Protein backbone atom coordinates (compact mmCIF):
# COMPACT_ATOMS: atom_id res chain seq x y z
CA UNK A 1 0.00 0.00 0.00
CA UNK A 2 2.86 2.37 0.82
CA UNK A 3 3.82 2.21 -2.82
CA UNK A 4 0.47 3.57 -3.88
CA UNK A 5 0.71 6.44 -1.43
CA UNK A 6 4.10 7.37 -2.84
CA UNK A 7 2.77 7.35 -6.32
CA UNK A 8 -0.17 9.54 -5.38
CA UNK A 9 2.15 12.21 -3.96
CA UNK A 10 4.23 12.39 -7.14
CA UNK A 11 3.27 14.96 -9.71
CA UNK A 12 4.75 12.97 -12.57
CA UNK A 13 7.06 10.16 -13.46
CA UNK A 14 9.49 9.84 -16.32
CA UNK A 15 8.86 7.03 -18.73
CA UNK A 16 11.04 5.92 -21.57
CA UNK A 17 9.17 5.43 -24.80
CA UNK A 18 9.55 4.86 -28.51
CA UNK A 19 7.01 6.88 -30.37
CA UNK A 20 6.49 6.70 -34.08
CA UNK A 21 7.51 10.01 -35.55
CA UNK A 22 7.33 11.45 -38.99
CA UNK A 23 10.63 12.82 -40.15
CA UNK A 24 10.57 15.59 -42.72
CA UNK A 25 13.80 15.21 -44.60
CA UNK A 26 14.58 18.61 -46.09
CA UNK A 27 16.40 18.67 -49.38
CA UNK A 28 15.85 22.37 -49.86
CA UNK A 29 16.16 25.21 -47.36
CA UNK A 30 13.90 27.49 -49.38
CA UNK A 31 10.65 28.05 -47.42
CA UNK A 32 8.79 28.93 -50.63
CA UNK A 33 9.63 25.60 -52.28
CA UNK A 34 8.64 23.76 -49.11
CA UNK A 35 5.35 25.67 -49.07
CA UNK A 36 4.61 24.71 -52.67
CA UNK A 37 5.26 21.04 -52.09
CA UNK A 38 3.25 20.99 -48.88
CA UNK A 39 0.30 22.64 -50.56
CA UNK A 40 0.36 19.93 -53.21
CA UNK A 41 0.48 17.19 -50.58
CA UNK A 42 -2.28 18.69 -48.52
CA UNK A 43 -4.70 18.25 -51.37
CA UNK A 44 -3.53 14.67 -51.95
CA UNK A 45 -3.64 13.43 -48.38
CA UNK A 46 -5.55 15.81 -46.14
CA UNK A 47 -5.81 13.15 -43.41
CA UNK A 48 -2.08 13.23 -42.90
CA UNK A 49 -2.05 16.93 -42.01
CA UNK A 50 -3.84 16.93 -38.69
CA UNK A 51 -1.39 18.67 -36.39
CA UNK A 52 0.95 15.81 -37.07
CA UNK A 53 4.18 16.17 -35.09
CA UNK A 54 7.24 16.12 -37.31
CA UNK A 55 10.96 16.15 -36.86
CA UNK A 56 12.73 18.40 -39.36
CA UNK A 57 15.81 16.64 -40.57
CA UNK A 58 18.37 18.99 -42.09
CA UNK A 59 21.10 16.38 -42.41
CA UNK A 60 21.01 16.52 -46.17
CA UNK A 61 21.36 20.30 -46.27
CA UNK A 62 24.77 21.79 -46.39
CA UNK A 63 23.81 25.22 -45.14
CA UNK A 64 25.14 26.51 -41.84
CA UNK A 65 22.29 29.02 -41.48
CA UNK A 66 18.67 28.16 -42.01
CA UNK A 67 15.52 30.21 -42.06
CA UNK A 68 14.25 27.80 -39.45
CA UNK A 69 11.57 30.12 -38.12
CA UNK A 70 10.04 30.59 -41.57
CA UNK A 71 10.20 26.87 -42.34
CA UNK A 72 8.39 26.15 -39.08
CA UNK A 73 5.77 28.75 -39.89
CA UNK A 74 5.16 27.14 -43.28
CA UNK A 75 4.79 23.76 -41.62
CA UNK A 76 2.33 25.07 -39.03
CA UNK A 77 0.32 26.76 -41.72
CA UNK A 78 -0.14 23.29 -43.21
CA UNK A 79 -1.05 21.70 -39.91
CA UNK A 80 2.29 20.05 -39.29
CA UNK A 81 3.80 20.60 -35.86
CA UNK A 82 7.59 20.72 -35.88
CA UNK A 83 8.73 19.35 -32.54
CA UNK A 84 12.43 18.97 -33.10
CA UNK A 85 15.28 19.36 -35.54
CA UNK A 86 17.74 16.64 -36.41
CA UNK A 87 21.26 17.31 -37.60
CA UNK A 88 22.72 20.54 -38.87
CA UNK A 89 25.36 22.94 -37.70
CA UNK A 90 25.76 24.53 -34.29
CA UNK A 91 23.89 27.73 -35.28
CA UNK A 92 21.00 25.52 -36.45
CA UNK A 93 21.01 23.80 -33.07
CA UNK A 94 20.99 27.16 -31.27
CA UNK A 95 18.12 28.53 -33.34
CA UNK A 96 16.14 25.32 -32.82
CA UNK A 97 16.48 25.75 -29.08
CA UNK A 98 15.60 29.43 -29.38
CA UNK A 99 12.38 28.41 -31.14
CA UNK A 100 11.55 25.98 -28.35
CA UNK A 101 12.29 22.93 -30.50
CA UNK A 102 14.33 19.93 -29.48
CA UNK A 103 17.53 19.00 -31.25
CA UNK A 104 18.72 15.51 -32.17
CA UNK A 105 22.19 14.63 -33.36
CA UNK A 106 22.38 13.43 -36.95
CA UNK A 107 21.58 9.77 -37.53
CA UNK A 108 24.54 7.56 -38.11
CA UNK A 109 22.79 4.97 -40.21
CA UNK A 110 20.92 6.04 -43.25
CA UNK A 111 17.22 6.18 -42.57
CA UNK A 112 14.99 3.87 -44.53
CA UNK A 113 12.94 5.81 -47.01
CA UNK A 114 9.70 3.93 -47.11
CA UNK A 115 7.79 6.04 -49.53
CA UNK A 116 9.36 7.77 -52.43
CA UNK A 117 9.08 11.50 -52.85
CA UNK A 118 5.99 12.38 -54.80
CA UNK A 119 3.70 9.92 -53.07
CA UNK A 120 3.40 11.24 -49.59
CA UNK A 121 5.68 12.91 -47.13
CA UNK A 122 8.65 10.69 -46.41
CA UNK A 123 7.84 8.83 -43.25
CA UNK A 124 10.24 7.03 -41.03
CA UNK A 125 8.93 4.50 -38.61
CA UNK A 126 10.29 2.93 -35.49
CA UNK A 127 12.62 0.12 -36.34
CA UNK A 128 10.64 -3.08 -36.33
CA UNK A 129 11.36 -6.47 -37.73
CA UNK A 130 9.22 -7.17 -40.73
CA UNK A 131 6.41 -9.42 -39.54
CA UNK A 132 5.83 -12.65 -41.42
CA UNK A 133 3.50 -12.52 -44.41
CA UNK A 134 3.96 -8.78 -44.64
CA UNK A 135 2.16 -7.11 -47.47
CA UNK A 136 2.98 -3.45 -47.86
CA UNK A 137 3.53 -3.17 -44.12
CA UNK A 138 0.35 -5.05 -43.35
CA UNK A 139 0.04 -8.51 -41.95
CA UNK A 140 -2.12 -11.59 -42.33
CA UNK A 141 -2.48 -13.89 -39.36
CA UNK A 142 -4.02 -17.30 -39.93
CA UNK A 143 -5.60 -19.16 -37.05
CA UNK A 144 -7.13 -18.28 -33.72
CA UNK A 145 -5.50 -15.50 -31.70
CA UNK A 146 -5.65 -16.97 -28.22
CA UNK A 147 -5.94 -15.51 -24.74
CA UNK A 148 -2.66 -13.88 -23.75
CA UNK A 149 -1.44 -13.52 -27.32
CA UNK A 150 -0.90 -10.24 -29.08
CA UNK A 151 -0.74 -9.84 -32.83
CA UNK A 152 0.16 -6.49 -34.29
CA UNK A 153 0.74 -4.84 -37.63
CA UNK A 154 2.77 -1.77 -36.68
CA UNK A 155 2.80 -0.38 -40.20
CA UNK A 156 -0.44 -1.29 -41.93
CA UNK A 157 -3.62 -3.29 -41.81
CA UNK A 158 -4.01 -6.49 -39.85
CA UNK A 159 -6.08 -9.33 -41.24
CA UNK A 160 -6.95 -12.20 -38.93
CA UNK A 161 -8.29 -15.28 -40.69
CA UNK A 162 -9.80 -16.83 -37.60
CA UNK A 163 -11.17 -15.64 -34.30
CA UNK A 164 -9.68 -13.35 -31.67
CA UNK A 165 -10.48 -14.89 -28.30
CA UNK A 166 -11.17 -13.17 -25.00
CA UNK A 167 -7.94 -12.03 -23.40
CA UNK A 168 -6.17 -11.66 -26.76
CA UNK A 169 -5.21 -8.36 -28.32
CA UNK A 170 -4.90 -7.34 -31.97
CA UNK A 171 -3.41 -4.02 -33.01
CA UNK A 172 -2.72 -2.25 -36.28
CA UNK A 173 -1.50 1.09 -37.51
CA UNK A 174 -4.24 0.76 -40.11
CA UNK A 175 -7.47 -1.18 -39.93
CA UNK A 176 -8.16 -4.48 -38.20
CA UNK A 177 -10.12 -7.12 -40.10
CA UNK A 178 -11.26 -10.25 -38.30
CA UNK A 179 -12.77 -13.05 -40.37
CA UNK A 180 -14.23 -14.75 -37.35
CA UNK A 181 -15.49 -13.81 -33.91
CA UNK A 182 -13.85 -10.85 -32.18
CA UNK A 183 -13.97 -11.58 -28.46
CA UNK A 184 -10.74 -9.91 -27.35
CA UNK A 185 -9.41 -6.37 -27.70
CA UNK A 186 -8.98 -4.72 -31.08
CA UNK A 187 -7.09 -1.48 -31.56
CA UNK A 188 -6.92 0.15 -34.98
CA UNK A 189 -5.06 3.31 -35.95
CA UNK A 190 -2.60 2.93 -33.08
CA UNK A 191 -0.45 5.74 -34.48
CA UNK A 192 -3.42 8.05 -34.67
CA UNK A 193 -4.90 7.25 -38.07
CA UNK A 194 -8.50 8.45 -37.73
CA UNK A 195 -9.54 6.75 -40.96
CA UNK A 196 -8.74 3.27 -39.71
CA UNK A 197 -11.57 0.92 -38.88
CA UNK A 198 -12.33 -2.41 -37.29
CA UNK A 199 -14.28 -5.06 -39.17
CA UNK A 200 -15.39 -8.39 -37.81
CA UNK A 201 -17.76 -11.25 -38.54
CA UNK A 202 -19.07 -11.55 -35.00
CA UNK A 203 -18.80 -8.81 -32.40
CA UNK A 204 -18.16 -9.71 -28.76
CA UNK A 205 -15.12 -7.47 -28.29
CA UNK A 206 -13.83 -6.63 -24.82
CA UNK A 207 -12.54 -3.35 -26.19
CA UNK A 208 -12.69 -1.51 -29.50
CA UNK A 209 -10.38 1.41 -30.17
CA UNK A 210 -9.74 3.56 -33.21
CA UNK A 211 -7.00 6.19 -32.91
CA UNK A 212 -7.29 6.14 -29.14
CA UNK A 213 -11.08 6.53 -29.01
CA UNK A 214 -12.41 3.45 -27.37
CA UNK A 215 -15.51 1.58 -26.30
CA UNK A 216 -15.66 -1.21 -23.77
CA UNK A 217 -17.94 -4.21 -24.10
CA UNK A 218 -20.20 -2.54 -21.56
CA UNK A 219 -20.60 0.53 -23.78
CA UNK A 220 -21.59 -1.45 -26.84
CA UNK A 221 -25.27 -1.64 -27.75
CA UNK A 222 -26.23 -5.24 -26.87
CA UNK A 223 -28.21 -5.48 -30.09
CA UNK A 224 -24.97 -5.28 -32.03
CA UNK A 225 -23.36 -8.17 -30.18
CA UNK A 226 -22.91 -11.25 -32.28
CA UNK A 227 -23.42 -9.23 -35.45
CA UNK A 228 -21.08 -8.65 -38.32
CA UNK A 229 -20.00 -5.03 -37.92
CA UNK A 230 -17.81 -2.18 -39.04
CA UNK A 231 -16.37 0.22 -36.47
CA UNK A 232 -15.41 3.68 -37.65
CA UNK A 233 -14.56 7.02 -36.15
CA UNK A 234 -16.77 9.94 -36.99
CA UNK A 235 -16.40 13.26 -35.18
CA UNK A 236 -14.16 11.60 -32.62
CA UNK A 237 -16.96 9.19 -31.74
CA UNK A 238 -16.75 5.47 -32.34
CA UNK A 239 -19.68 4.33 -34.38
CA UNK A 240 -20.54 0.68 -34.82
CA UNK A 241 -22.57 -0.18 -37.87
CA UNK A 242 -24.04 -3.59 -38.53
CA UNK A 243 -23.04 -5.03 -41.87
CA UNK A 244 -25.94 -7.44 -42.08
Amino acid at each position, binding site marked *: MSLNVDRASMAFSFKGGMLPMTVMELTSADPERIREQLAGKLSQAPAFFQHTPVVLSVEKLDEPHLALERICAVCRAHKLLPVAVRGGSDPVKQSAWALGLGWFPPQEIKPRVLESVGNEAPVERVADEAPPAAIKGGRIHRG*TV*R*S*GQQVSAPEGDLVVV*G*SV*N*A*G*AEVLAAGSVHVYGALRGRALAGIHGDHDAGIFCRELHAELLSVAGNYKRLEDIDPQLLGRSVEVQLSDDQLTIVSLT
Partner: protein
Amino acid sequence: MAKIIVVTSGKGGVGKTTSAAAIATGLALRGKKTVVIDFDVGLRNLDLIMGCERRVVYDLVNVIQGEAGLNQALIRDKRVDNLHILPASQTRDKDALTQEGVEKILETLTKDFDYIVCDSPAGIERGAQLAMYYADEAVVVTNPEVSSVRDSDRILGLLASKTRRAENGQEPVKEHLLITRYNPARVDHGDMLNLDDIQEILAIDLLGLIPESEAVLRASNQGIPVTHDNDSDAGQAYTDTVSRLLGEKVPLRFHETQKKGLLSRMFGGGRR
Protein backbone atom coordinates in the same frame (compact mmCIF):
# COMPACT_ATOMS: atom_id res chain seq x y z
CA MET B 1 10.15 -43.96 -30.23
CA ALA B 2 7.42 -43.20 -27.75
CA LYS B 3 4.77 -40.62 -28.34
CA ILE B 4 4.87 -37.94 -25.66
CA ILE B 5 1.43 -36.72 -24.60
CA VAL B 6 0.95 -33.87 -22.14
CA VAL B 7 -2.28 -33.59 -20.20
CA THR B 8 -2.70 -29.93 -19.37
CA SER B 9 -5.32 -27.23 -18.75
CA GLY B 10 -4.00 -24.04 -17.18
CA LYS B 11 -6.75 -24.02 -14.60
CA GLY B 12 -6.51 -26.25 -11.55
CA GLY B 13 -9.07 -28.79 -10.42
CA VAL B 14 -10.51 -29.54 -13.84
CA GLY B 15 -9.43 -33.18 -13.88
CA LYS B 16 -5.91 -33.26 -15.33
CA THR B 17 -4.55 -35.93 -13.03
CA THR B 18 -7.72 -38.01 -13.22
CA SER B 19 -7.56 -37.81 -17.01
CA ALA B 20 -3.81 -38.53 -17.18
CA ALA B 21 -4.30 -41.62 -15.01
CA ALA B 22 -7.38 -42.75 -16.94
CA ILE B 23 -5.79 -42.23 -20.35
CA ALA B 24 -2.52 -43.90 -19.37
CA THR B 25 -4.47 -46.84 -17.97
CA GLY B 26 -6.60 -47.03 -21.09
CA LEU B 27 -3.53 -47.04 -23.35
CA ALA B 28 -1.92 -49.79 -21.28
CA LEU B 29 -5.13 -51.83 -21.36
CA ARG B 30 -4.96 -51.59 -25.14
CA GLY B 31 -1.53 -53.21 -25.01
CA LYS B 32 0.57 -50.07 -25.34
CA LYS B 33 3.60 -49.87 -23.11
CA THR B 34 2.88 -46.69 -21.19
CA VAL B 35 4.51 -44.57 -18.50
CA VAL B 36 2.74 -41.72 -16.77
CA ILE B 37 4.86 -38.98 -15.19
CA ASP B 38 3.71 -36.62 -12.45
CA PHE B 39 5.16 -33.15 -13.10
CA ASP B 40 3.33 -31.58 -10.18
CA VAL B 41 6.40 -31.37 -7.93
CA GLY B 42 5.37 -30.33 -4.44
CA LEU B 43 1.70 -31.27 -4.90
CA ARG B 44 2.03 -34.92 -5.77
CA ASN B 45 -1.34 -36.52 -6.52
CA LEU B 46 -0.93 -38.97 -9.37
CA ASP B 47 0.34 -41.72 -7.06
CA LEU B 48 -2.88 -41.45 -5.04
CA ILE B 49 -5.12 -41.63 -8.10
CA MET B 50 -3.11 -44.59 -9.39
CA GLY B 51 -3.23 -46.23 -5.96
CA CYS B 52 0.52 -46.64 -5.60
CA GLU B 53 1.27 -44.03 -2.92
CA ARG B 54 2.62 -46.65 -0.54
CA ARG B 55 5.17 -47.86 -3.00
CA VAL B 56 6.92 -44.57 -3.75
CA VAL B 57 10.60 -44.67 -2.83
CA TYR B 58 12.33 -42.46 -5.36
CA ASP B 59 10.78 -39.75 -7.50
CA LEU B 60 11.28 -37.57 -10.56
CA VAL B 61 13.46 -35.06 -8.72
CA ASN B 62 15.70 -37.81 -7.32
CA VAL B 63 16.30 -39.05 -10.84
CA ILE B 64 16.98 -35.57 -12.20
CA GLN B 65 19.48 -34.90 -9.46
CA GLY B 66 21.20 -38.23 -9.94
CA GLU B 67 20.23 -39.63 -6.54
CA ALA B 68 18.45 -42.60 -8.06
CA GLY B 69 18.31 -44.44 -11.33
CA LEU B 70 15.25 -44.18 -13.54
CA ASN B 71 14.43 -47.86 -13.05
CA GLN B 72 14.51 -47.45 -9.29
CA ALA B 73 11.98 -44.64 -9.45
CA LEU B 74 9.56 -46.23 -11.92
CA ILE B 75 6.67 -47.97 -10.22
CA ARG B 76 5.02 -50.88 -11.97
CA ASP B 77 1.22 -50.71 -11.86
CA LYS B 78 -0.42 -53.53 -9.93
CA ARG B 79 -3.41 -53.89 -12.25
CA VAL B 80 -2.02 -53.49 -15.75
CA ASP B 81 1.27 -55.02 -16.90
CA ASN B 82 2.27 -52.41 -19.44
CA LEU B 83 1.83 -49.44 -17.14
CA HIS B 84 4.48 -47.60 -15.12
CA ILE B 85 4.28 -44.53 -12.94
CA LEU B 86 7.02 -41.98 -12.29
CA PRO B 87 5.91 -40.03 -9.22
CA ALA B 88 6.71 -36.43 -8.36
CA SER B 89 8.46 -35.30 -5.22
CA GLN B 90 6.24 -33.96 -2.47
CA THR B 91 9.00 -32.26 -0.50
CA ARG B 92 10.54 -30.17 -3.26
CA ASP B 93 9.23 -27.43 -5.50
CA LYS B 94 9.13 -26.92 -9.24
CA ASP B 95 12.54 -25.22 -9.33
CA ALA B 96 14.05 -28.65 -8.73
CA LEU B 97 13.07 -29.55 -12.29
CA THR B 98 15.62 -28.74 -14.97
CA GLN B 99 15.08 -28.77 -18.67
CA GLU B 100 18.14 -30.93 -19.29
CA GLY B 101 17.07 -33.37 -16.57
CA VAL B 102 13.59 -33.72 -18.03
CA GLU B 103 14.97 -34.12 -21.52
CA LYS B 104 17.33 -36.88 -20.40
CA ILE B 105 14.56 -38.81 -18.65
CA LEU B 106 12.23 -38.53 -21.63
CA GLU B 107 15.00 -39.58 -23.98
CA THR B 108 15.64 -42.72 -21.94
CA LEU B 109 11.94 -43.56 -21.57
CA THR B 110 11.20 -43.03 -25.23
CA LYS B 111 13.34 -46.07 -26.09
CA ASP B 112 11.37 -48.47 -23.88
CA PHE B 113 7.82 -47.20 -24.08
CA ASP B 114 5.11 -46.60 -26.68
CA TYR B 115 3.47 -43.73 -24.83
CA ILE B 116 4.73 -41.22 -22.27
CA VAL B 117 1.88 -39.37 -20.57
CA CYS B 118 2.95 -36.17 -18.76
CA ASP B 119 0.58 -35.00 -16.05
CA SER B 120 1.06 -31.24 -15.98
CA PRO B 121 0.61 -29.07 -12.90
CA ALA B 122 -1.90 -26.22 -13.04
CA GLY B 123 -0.76 -22.78 -14.05
CA ILE B 124 1.50 -21.61 -16.82
CA GLU B 125 4.76 -21.46 -14.88
CA ARG B 126 7.88 -23.56 -14.96
CA GLY B 127 6.33 -26.91 -14.04
CA ALA B 128 3.60 -26.62 -16.65
CA GLN B 129 6.00 -25.36 -19.30
CA LEU B 130 8.44 -28.21 -18.71
CA ALA B 131 5.62 -30.75 -18.82
CA MET B 132 4.54 -29.50 -22.25
CA TYR B 133 7.93 -28.60 -23.72
CA TYR B 134 8.80 -31.99 -25.24
CA ALA B 135 5.24 -33.03 -26.09
CA ASP B 136 4.18 -34.45 -29.45
CA GLU B 137 0.51 -34.27 -28.59
CA ALA B 138 -1.48 -32.37 -25.99
CA VAL B 139 -4.74 -33.24 -24.29
CA VAL B 140 -6.25 -29.98 -23.09
CA VAL B 141 -8.68 -30.70 -20.26
CA THR B 142 -11.53 -28.21 -20.03
CA ASN B 143 -14.61 -27.90 -17.84
CA PRO B 144 -17.77 -26.40 -19.30
CA GLU B 145 -17.30 -23.03 -17.64
CA VAL B 146 -15.91 -19.75 -18.95
CA SER B 147 -12.83 -19.48 -16.73
CA SER B 148 -11.68 -22.96 -17.63
CA VAL B 149 -12.21 -22.31 -21.33
CA ARG B 150 -10.22 -19.09 -21.18
CA ASP B 151 -7.33 -20.79 -19.37
CA SER B 152 -7.34 -23.60 -21.90
CA ASP B 153 -7.19 -20.99 -24.63
CA ARG B 154 -4.11 -19.51 -22.95
CA ILE B 155 -2.49 -22.94 -22.74
CA LEU B 156 -3.17 -23.55 -26.43
CA GLY B 157 -1.31 -20.32 -27.18
CA LEU B 158 1.66 -21.56 -25.17
CA LEU B 159 1.58 -24.95 -26.89
CA ALA B 160 1.94 -23.13 -30.18
CA SER B 161 4.95 -21.12 -29.04
CA LYS B 162 6.70 -22.54 -25.97
CA THR B 163 7.34 -26.13 -26.99
CA ARG B 164 10.31 -27.84 -28.59
CA ARG B 165 8.30 -28.43 -31.74
CA ALA B 166 7.38 -24.75 -31.99
CA GLU B 167 10.89 -23.55 -31.27
CA ASN B 168 12.46 -25.91 -33.81
CA GLY B 169 9.86 -25.06 -36.43
CA GLN B 170 8.71 -28.69 -36.57
CA GLU B 171 5.15 -29.84 -37.14
CA PRO B 172 3.13 -28.26 -34.31
CA VAL B 173 2.00 -30.15 -31.23
CA LYS B 174 -1.21 -32.02 -32.04
CA GLU B 175 -3.91 -30.50 -29.85
CA HIS B 176 -6.89 -32.44 -28.51
CA LEU B 177 -9.80 -31.14 -26.49
CA LEU B 178 -11.06 -33.23 -23.59
CA ILE B 179 -14.15 -31.87 -21.88
CA THR B 180 -14.68 -33.19 -18.37
CA ARG B 181 -17.45 -32.79 -15.79
CA TYR B 182 -20.02 -32.32 -18.54
CA ASN B 183 -23.57 -32.43 -17.26
CA PRO B 184 -26.06 -32.35 -20.15
CA ALA B 185 -28.98 -31.52 -17.87
CA ARG B 186 -27.21 -28.47 -16.47
CA VAL B 187 -26.13 -27.49 -19.98
CA ASP B 188 -29.78 -27.58 -21.08
CA HIS B 189 -30.56 -25.43 -18.07
CA GLY B 190 -27.97 -22.89 -19.14
CA ASP B 191 -25.80 -23.42 -16.03
CA MET B 192 -22.94 -24.78 -18.09
CA LEU B 193 -21.42 -23.92 -21.44
CA ASN B 194 -22.47 -26.32 -24.12
CA LEU B 195 -20.20 -28.46 -26.21
CA ASP B 196 -20.58 -26.37 -29.37
CA ASP B 197 -19.72 -23.10 -27.62
CA ILE B 198 -16.56 -24.57 -26.12
CA GLN B 199 -15.49 -26.03 -29.43
CA GLU B 200 -16.20 -22.79 -31.25
CA ILE B 201 -14.00 -20.79 -28.90
CA LEU B 202 -11.13 -23.24 -28.65
CA ALA B 203 -11.28 -24.33 -32.29
CA ILE B 204 -9.52 -27.69 -31.85
CA ASP B 205 -10.64 -31.27 -32.40
CA LEU B 206 -12.70 -32.90 -29.68
CA LEU B 207 -10.97 -35.98 -28.32
CA GLY B 208 -13.55 -36.88 -25.74
CA LEU B 209 -16.29 -35.82 -23.42
CA ILE B 210 -16.43 -37.14 -19.88
CA PRO B 211 -19.77 -36.74 -18.11
CA GLU B 212 -19.92 -35.47 -14.55
CA SER B 213 -20.06 -38.71 -12.63
CA GLU B 214 -19.95 -40.10 -9.14
CA ALA B 215 -17.69 -42.81 -10.49
CA VAL B 216 -14.82 -40.32 -10.87
CA LEU B 217 -14.73 -39.29 -7.22
CA ARG B 218 -15.15 -42.88 -6.13
CA ALA B 219 -12.28 -43.97 -8.36
CA SER B 220 -9.99 -41.21 -7.07
CA ASN B 221 -10.61 -42.08 -3.47
CA GLN B 222 -10.09 -45.77 -4.08
CA GLY B 223 -6.95 -45.17 -6.10
CA ILE B 224 -8.28 -47.10 -9.09
CA PRO B 225 -8.26 -45.16 -12.37
CA VAL B 226 -11.84 -44.78 -13.56
CA THR B 227 -11.05 -46.53 -16.85
CA HIS B 228 -11.20 -49.82 -14.91
CA ASP B 229 -14.82 -49.07 -13.96
CA ASN B 230 -16.37 -50.22 -17.19
CA ASP B 231 -19.90 -50.09 -15.85
CA SER B 232 -19.68 -46.37 -15.27
CA ASP B 233 -20.41 -43.66 -17.84
CA ALA B 234 -17.12 -41.90 -17.07
CA GLY B 235 -15.16 -45.15 -17.43
CA GLN B 236 -16.72 -45.82 -20.81
CA ALA B 237 -16.16 -42.24 -21.90
CA TYR B 238 -12.44 -42.52 -21.09
CA THR B 239 -12.25 -45.81 -22.98
CA ASP B 240 -13.79 -44.02 -26.00
CA THR B 241 -11.30 -41.19 -25.55
CA VAL B 242 -8.37 -43.60 -25.63
CA SER B 243 -9.72 -45.26 -28.78
CA ARG B 244 -9.89 -41.86 -30.49
CA LEU B 245 -6.36 -41.09 -29.32
CA LEU B 246 -5.31 -44.28 -31.09
CA GLY B 247 -6.94 -43.00 -34.25
CA GLU B 248 -10.22 -44.89 -34.16
CA LYS B 249 -13.56 -43.33 -35.03
CA VAL B 250 -15.91 -43.64 -32.10
CA PRO B 251 -19.27 -41.86 -31.89
CA LEU B 252 -19.69 -39.32 -29.12
CA ARG B 253 -21.75 -40.41 -26.11
CA PHE B 254 -23.09 -38.84 -22.91
CA HIS B 255 -23.41 -35.35 -24.38
CA GLU B 256 -27.20 -35.29 -24.46
CA THR B 257 -29.75 -35.62 -21.72
CA GLN B 258 -31.13 -39.12 -21.52
CA LYS B 259 -34.51 -39.19 -23.18
CA LYS B 260 -36.92 -40.82 -20.81
CA GLY B 261 -38.58 -43.87 -22.25
CA LEU B 262 -42.35 -44.31 -22.29
CA LEU B 263 -42.33 -46.65 -19.32
CA SER B 264 -40.16 -44.52 -17.11
CA ARG B 265 -42.22 -41.48 -18.03
CA MET B 266 -45.35 -43.34 -17.00
CA PHE B 267 -43.92 -44.58 -13.76
CA GLY B 268 -41.62 -41.64 -13.04
CA GLY B 269 -38.59 -43.88 -12.67
CA GLY B 270 -35.39 -44.03 -14.62
CA ARG B 271 -32.20 -42.06 -14.30
CA ARG B 272 -32.33 -38.41 -13.68
